[in-house]
């Protein structure tokens, strides 16, 4: 009985007692559902660092939104959205019309955007604001923030389902996709649509996790999930489950130990990553233990 009681105190009562914990929980779970599968596709398209680049790119937009509207979620989210889309489009244009590959042009543009963003925020806000925007505060998610996260998650899950086949073909065999494209349906539409999904998820994540940490919930579970399964649907599901688990664990830890929520959640995802590295079928231990079978 007392064990049950302790468990209740540790796991359930923070959520039962505090509305802000419940909102943070729902926001993180919704993000796990939409952002983690996007992360899997990002790694498969050899764009693991693209999410990182885009998350930095969102920053100046958030800063400008912050300057114009103060700590208003609508203003900052709109700013971040516009900046992210702009950078993605700019990088795509540079790729199409110059000799640079997309990751190179993206790296160049996001560095400029990051510098701009940090300058803007430190000129016009306090140190605290900068920290808040960079690392988020899951525990400060209000009803409006929750609505934003929920709508983005729903929209991007639906959009991902609609784009699924095209994205799979585009990642597996891009030459086939461009050879089979139809008139008026350029094949870069998949890539750009996909990047837009990444941007809106990063914007949804920035309030909960911060612009720098939002990408962690997207990429870490995705990378670990790839160690576990050979098929894409399983990897997508695994990534979501891992993201959700790190979300719950991270929120509880940050509540009990009074640590910042964003980094704690990402820390939990990191723990799962190291765990997967060790014991997952594609990880280190099975490689060592079953090496003989592989050779034979």
């Amino acid at each position, binding site marked *: 009985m007392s064990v049950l009681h302790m468990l209740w105190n540790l796991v359930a009562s923070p959520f039962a007692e505090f509305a802000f914990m419940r909102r943070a929980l729902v926001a993180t779970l919704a993000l796990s559902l939409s952002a983690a599968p996007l992360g899997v596709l990002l790694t498969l398209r050899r764009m693991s660092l693209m999410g990182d680049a885009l998350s930095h790119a969102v920053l100046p937009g958030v800063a400008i939104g912050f300057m114009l509207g103060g700590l208003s979620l609508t203003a900052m989210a709109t700013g971040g959205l516009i900046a992210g889309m702009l950078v993605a489009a700019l990088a795509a244009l540079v790729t199409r019309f110059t000799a640079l590959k997309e990751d190179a042009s993206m790296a160049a543009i996001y560095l400029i955007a990051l510098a701009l963003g940090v300058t803007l925020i430190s000129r016009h806000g306090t140190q605290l604001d900068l920290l808040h925007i960079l690392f988020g505060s899951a525990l400060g998610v209000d009803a409006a923030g929750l609505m934003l996260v929920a709508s983005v998650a729903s929209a991007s899950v639906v959009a991902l389902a*609609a784009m699924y*086949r095209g994205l*799979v073909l585009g990642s597996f065999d*891009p*030459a*086939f996709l461009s*050879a*089979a494209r*139809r008139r008026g349906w350029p094949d870069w539409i998949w890539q750009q649509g996909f990047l837009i999904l990444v941007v809106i998820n990063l914007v949804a994540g920035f309030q909960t996790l911060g612009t720098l940490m939002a990408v962690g919930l997207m990429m870490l579970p995705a990378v670990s999930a790839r160690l576990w399964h*050979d098929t894409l649907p399983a990897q997508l599901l695994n990534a979501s489950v891992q993201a959700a688990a790190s979300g719950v664990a991270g929120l509880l830890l940050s509540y009990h130990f009074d640590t910042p929520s964003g980094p704690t959640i990402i820390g939990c995802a990191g723990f799962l990553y190291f765990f997967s590295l060790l014991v997952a079928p594609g990880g280190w231990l099975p490689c060592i233990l079953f090496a003989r079978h592989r050779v034979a």
Partner: protein
Amino acid sequence: MVNSACYMVTLNNLTVSYRQHPALRHISGSFVSGSLTAVVGPNGSGKSTLLKSIAALLPTAPGQVSVSAPRARIAYLPQLVELDRGFPIDVRDAVLLGCWGATQAWRAVTPVMLTRVDAALHAVGLEGFERRPVGALSSGQLQRVLFARLLLQDADLILLDEPFNAMDSKTVVTLLALVRMWHKQQRTIITVLHDDTQVRQHFPQTLLLAREVVAWGPTEQVMTEPNLRRARAMAEAWEDEAHPPACPLRVATFPVAGGKTSGPAAPVPRCSGVLETAAQ
């Protein structure tokens, strides 16, 4: 038969350049409907570029390439390296993507399509591999998967870029049988190949390419020793263009003439010499 229907692909002065370097120059000619053509030539002679131009993967000026089949009826098989082999997709789904023309992004996969997938896997000798991840296949097995996908595409014009590269003889036999079957079914096939024996044995038509057409017609008239020598000579000529013959100053520092180390060696006019031999 209407005249335009006789030709599947017509090239009219096709010229393609990569960054001002010409890859193909003034290619004109036609591939007859139902013909089976091998495209041969030295490395860098523009064979893949030709295939990509026909598949409309490279921008060409209007009128340079005209294909009488609709876009959905063209199948293009690139070289194996252009594929992401680590992608977590299984054999059945990879083959099923051959129905992309019919399903596009959203339409449902019908049981008929699944039956065709099974039949295609049977034809390439990969029954029982349906659930294997593509990453676990050997190069030969992967090429069989891609041929199965071609079977599903059911195309009128089939473009194959070095399909038998690094395949063992058993795989080549299976895949060549499919190519012959397509030929019997009156499909037009254009294949980039490197193996002269294969070309002579199995391909009635040949296009010998060295950035421009060296010879184009029935294989026995094209694959002659003078033609092949001419193609090789042209290839050496453009390699010299990329690395021009050393200038006299350079020759003076690093003499090329054998044994003659004193004084500048006479510059060797390699391009023109080679071309002269070729012209004879």
